[in-house]
């Protein structure tokens, strides 16, 4: 017996597709199911096509929304056109009676439900979402009481009348399908409700939560899809801890405000997507040479330029690794799941202050805007390390004006002071500078400062081999599959599907510094190295070739149509 199921609702933007999906996601999570919810949408407010897919499992968390679809709610014909190929043989389509549904696939069951009409009768067109929820509930065999509970929570503040209206709409949809298409009833396996309810969270929320617990108290950002929800979450939560959020005039200002705030001693960040990251390139250099900590979250979307604002891609890797003129030390992290978004933010703020350099966290739309259910986050992993900061006693012991903010040390790391600390004065400089921060052009000091800044990452280059990647599979794999960030979900599942074989899976969590020793351990023995790149030019494969060689073994798999990898595509690539 299968332990999972898939469901999708689709229609025009502005029809409440997301809210229909959200209701079901919430109900299923509360019932104990593990869901992954995927939003497909377009860069417009009304019209076009949007859909919301849920994959639910009884057993364990799912990290991907699945290749297949069992049931579709269609508010228009376009929804059928766009999604019929995804449906399984015999898949059910419940469509709004207001249009005449057609499908090129005979095996599908197209069943009309008067969703719009019922809503109209109830005097509220938008309530067709609740009709659709009721219709879905009958097919999935979910007891209506679960939905009633959700309706009461969701509309509780708005009064009894609205609660009753929603319940009635739900019942109408439920009963209509029950009376007309009783045979569609295919109850899904029951989930066991956990003692402590699970978390339902998006990657963007996970980033916001992680930043807040990491001690971030200032976020400056400019609205941009698919990163704006980070701004929303932080805005709703940071204020009660005295944190501040500023919507800047552009990404240049946002990033530089975060640098200014870090300079003054507050953990600060900015969040953006590709076009914003491009505008932050000069700020990246500013953080690098002035040795001011900085955390940038880049929720990648389809590029180049405005590109595909509402679609996913991993094509900002090169820019994150090499962008900005000149050469600076930097750290580039890549969360591999929605949970990992949280842990990587804790990591990012610590690294930024320990190494006094910019840290870029490369998320993407797939992680950022989609939600999943999982049991918990390990709060024991929340540790704050502010790095090397000079104490007031140390400053008092110095001669007046003798503090060397840019002291050339063996580790390359020099202690920071903050405004307000007596005798800790320095001028942070974007020019090359000597140890106290005066600009210079003399040769030995220039070389000493460049080398000092590079030296800072020495220990990290070693340590990153401990945590910079996840590895599963054979100790000496014949075929090694490498991905970074969000693709971990599909690669893991695809390899489970293939089963057996001498295969290994290495998923990178840190792109710079690259955990070279760790990768080499597996790459050396492999005959084939399949690199999964969600971009056109194979940026990850390029990085591995540049840093590790093995040109003859590395096969590049690319995808750049805006959609996440399917399991089918990865299976095909790995089978070769």
């Amino acid at each position, binding site marked *: 017996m299968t332990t999972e199921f898939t469901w999708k609702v689709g229609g025009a933007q502005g029809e409440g597709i997301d809210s229909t999906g959200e209701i079901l996601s919430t109900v299923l999570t509360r019932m104990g199911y593990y869901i992954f919810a995927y939003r497909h949408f377009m860069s417009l407010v009304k019209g076009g096509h949007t859909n919301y897919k849920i994959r639910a499992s009884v057993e364990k968390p799912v990290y991907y929304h699945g290749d297949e679809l069992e049931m579709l709610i269609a508010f228009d014909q376009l929804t059928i056109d766009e999604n019929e190929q995804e449906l399984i043989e015999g898949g059910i389509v419940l469509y709004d009676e207001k249009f005449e549904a057609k499908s090129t696939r005979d095996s599908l069951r197209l069943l009309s439900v008067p969703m719009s009409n019922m809503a109209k009768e109830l005097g509220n067109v938008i309530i067709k979402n609740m009709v659709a929820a009721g219709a879905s509930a009958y097919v999935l065999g979910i007891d209506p009481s679960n939905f009633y509970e959700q309706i009461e929570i969701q509309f509780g503040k708005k009064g009894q009348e609205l609660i009753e209206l929603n319940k009635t709409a739900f019942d109408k949809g439920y009963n209509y399908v029950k009376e007309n298409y009783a045979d569609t009833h295919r109850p899904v396996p029951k989930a066991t409700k956990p003692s402590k309810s699970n978390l339902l969270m998006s990657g963007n929320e996970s980033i916001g939560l992680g930043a*807040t617990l990491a001690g971030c108290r200032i976020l400056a950002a400019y609205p941009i899809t698919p990163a704006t929800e980070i701004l929303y979450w932080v805005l709703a*939560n*940071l204020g009660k801890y005295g944190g501040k*959020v500023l919507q800047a005039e552009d990404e*240049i200002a946002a990033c530089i405000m975060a640098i200014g705030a870090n300079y003054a001693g507050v953990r600060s960040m900015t969040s953006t997507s590709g076009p914003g990251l491009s505008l932050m390139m000069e700020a990246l250099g500013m953080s690098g040479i002035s040795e001011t900590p900085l955390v940038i979250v880049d929720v990648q979307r389809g590029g180049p330029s405005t590109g595909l604002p509402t679609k996913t891609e991993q094509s900002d890797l090169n820019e994150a690794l090499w962008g900005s003129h000149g050469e600076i030390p930097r750290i580039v992290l890549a969360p591999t799941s929605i949970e990992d978004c949280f842990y990587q933010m804790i990591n990012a703020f610590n690294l930024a202050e320990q190494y006094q350099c910019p840290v870029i966290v490369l998320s993407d739309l797939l992680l950022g805007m989609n939600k999943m259910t999982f049991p918990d986050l390990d709060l024991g992993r929340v540790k704050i390390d502010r790095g090397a900061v000079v104490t007031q006693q140390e400053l008092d012991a110095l001669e007046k004006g003798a503090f060397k903010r840019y002291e050339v040390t063996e580790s390359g790391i020099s202690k920071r002071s903050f405004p*307000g600390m007596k005798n800790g004065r320095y001028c942070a400089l974007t020019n090359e500078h000597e140890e106290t921060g005066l600009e210079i052009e003399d040769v030995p000091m220039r070389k000493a400062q460049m080398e000092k800044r590079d030296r800072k990452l020495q220990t990290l280059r070693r340590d990153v081999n401990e945590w910079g990647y996840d590895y599963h599979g054979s100790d000496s794999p014949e075929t090694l599959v490498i991905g970074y960030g969000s693709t971990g979900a599909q690669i893991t599942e695809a390899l489970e599907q293939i089963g057996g074989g001498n295969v290994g899976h290495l998923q990178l969590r840190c792109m710079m510094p690259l955990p070279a020793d760790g990768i080499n351990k597996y790459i050396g023995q492999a005959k084939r190295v399949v690199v999964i790149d969600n971009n056109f030019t194979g940026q990850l494969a390029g990085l591995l070739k540049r840093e590790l060689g093995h040109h003859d073994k590395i096969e590049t798999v690319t995808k750049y149509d805006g959609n996440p990898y399917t399991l089918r595509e990865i299976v095909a690539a790995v089978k070769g």
Partner: protein
Amino acid sequence: MATMADFRYEKATWCPGCGDFSVLAALQQVCVKRGLEPEDVVCVSGIGCSGKISQHFGSYGFHSLHGRSLPTAQGIKMANQDLTVIAAGGDGDGYGIGVGHFIHACRRNVDITYIVMDNHIYGLTTGQASPTSKKGHKTKTSPGGVGEEPLHPLQLAITAGATFVAQAFSGELKQMQRVLDEAISHKGFSLVNVFSPCVTFNRVNTYEWFKENIVNLDEEEGYDASDKFQALRRVYETNSVCTGVIYKEDRPAHHEYVLGATDQGTVKLPNEMPREEMESLLDQFRR
């Protein structure tokens, strides 16, 4: 009590006679007079000759990027509102590449003082036209004379919502000190545009030229700096060549109205959170 010496750091490298020396001196004098300690002041500058001021001012400093002194300064003030934050730069820096930030800093009313050393020319890059170069001014990049209208910083600041707008002249140190003192004590965004002649690359807008043309509004009978329309009219009538406190109003500063406003600097708040508080944030996500 801090002295002038506490606000000095190495000798500035400007050309002899550069107007920026007076700005640095006036700023140092005002800080001493106000009883500020150098560790409680941050001077943030952009790029250009005037941008070097942060290196030679004895407070904390950030010599930032071309056009980006204002975002840097606003970030610092957000982090620690207890600091006195001065942003400084030139006309190219503030009104060319950085003009977008300028307009938004005015409307945001962040409590910082922005000093623009306005010499109507790009000095450090050896003499190109700037946004405030007068029409017809011949420079390396305007061999036939500047064709564009000059930008009018005072009008721009007033209409963008700045709550304190003043103009001073490097040849009138006493007035500059007075204006700077008032600007620093003003709660909210204050602009002090200073005519700071470039003795090397601007042979048109010289000390003499300014002396001959400046109208001192501080001495003008009946001038009311709280009257926005009068301010705009007089700036227009004097072709922007006027000095004094031009416009002033009271409005809540950013650190007072921002969501999550605190009585003390953000930097003084704890980073760590009690376990129960972390749990309560997680509970938001439990359904």
